[in-house]
């Protein structure tokens, strides 16, 4: 009977298979009935009617990376918090909830201190230059002078 329990993963595979088949099937089916007359202008990237200049794969601002960095730390912490959260009730019923609560709060607080650091340092500000102008204008002036 041990193999039967894996059957619960069947719907996932079937649904993923259906998804892939649907995408390819619809596009292949559409190939039979839709027009196909490409031209150079059609295949150009849309840039409001102008000829596109250069490639779009240029450098982006680092703030995107900082956001995703904080995200991944939270994501990993959530992977640790989920099993602890799901045994919280069980431990609470046998009277050991306090210990888990303390563990949990310490864990979250360490995480929060990191977020507070990033907040204070302005990593969570999307428009940082604006704040720099307001708060540290004197410092910025010296930078420009140097």
């Amino acid at each position, binding site marked *: 009977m041990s193999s039967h329990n894996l059957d619960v993963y069947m719907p996932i595979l079937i649904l993923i298979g259906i998804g892939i088949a649907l995408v390819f099937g619809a596009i292949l089916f559409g190939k039979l009935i839709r027009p196909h007359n490409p031209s150079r202008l059609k295949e150009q990237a849309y840039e409001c009617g102008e000829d596109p200049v250069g490639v779009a794969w240029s450098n982006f601002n680092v703030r995107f990376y900082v956001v995703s*960095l904080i995200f991944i730390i939270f994501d990993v912490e959530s992977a640790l918090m989920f099993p602890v959260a799901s045994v919280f009730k069980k431990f609470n019923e046998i009277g050991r909830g306090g210990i888990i609560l303390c563990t949990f709060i310490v864990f979250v607080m360490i*995480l929060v201190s990191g977020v507070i*650091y990033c907040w204070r340092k302005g990593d969570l500000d999307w428009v940082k230059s604006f704040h720099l102008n307001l708060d540290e204008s004197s410092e910025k002036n010296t930078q420009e002078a140097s």
Partner: protein
Amino acid sequence: MFDSVLFLLSAILIVVGSLGVLFIKENIMHACVALLTALFGVAGAYAVLGADFLAATQLVVYVGGVVILMLFAVMLTGGGAANENKFGIEKIPAMGNVKTYIIAGVNVLVISLVVIKIMANVMQDYKAVALPAYESTVEKLGTLLVTDHVLAFEVSSILLLGALVGAAVIARPIGSTK
């Protein structure tokens, strides 16, 4: 029977994805997607091994987190266009050439022989035991995390704090730290 099917599918994903990471040379973005494939396969292998929580963790952390982080990092470093050595000293393209692949092949061969030898020695003493039935690992993992491994649980939080602060300091835009 279904466990064999699931294992075969995940094995195919792992093999194809790993080979993709090794051999896709044109574009680092494609290599990232190949890594995504391999990691998906690893999640499937965890499911076959009865580690349901780890399979879900693999999906959450890698598919949603690490791969997106890598895609972002590729975009932030020129979208895979920066394949050339800037200084051109050695003239080795960033994605490798025949010479580096030959060196890698020789190294891998030597190391894999050593690993196989060690594994064969260990496996001599292995006796098959009855396999446990598939059951939920979440409660057991949670219990272990707050009883036996509670120190590791808390210390990992500090590790992540360090990673967060360190990476934020390193990646901060240059203008704001000068």
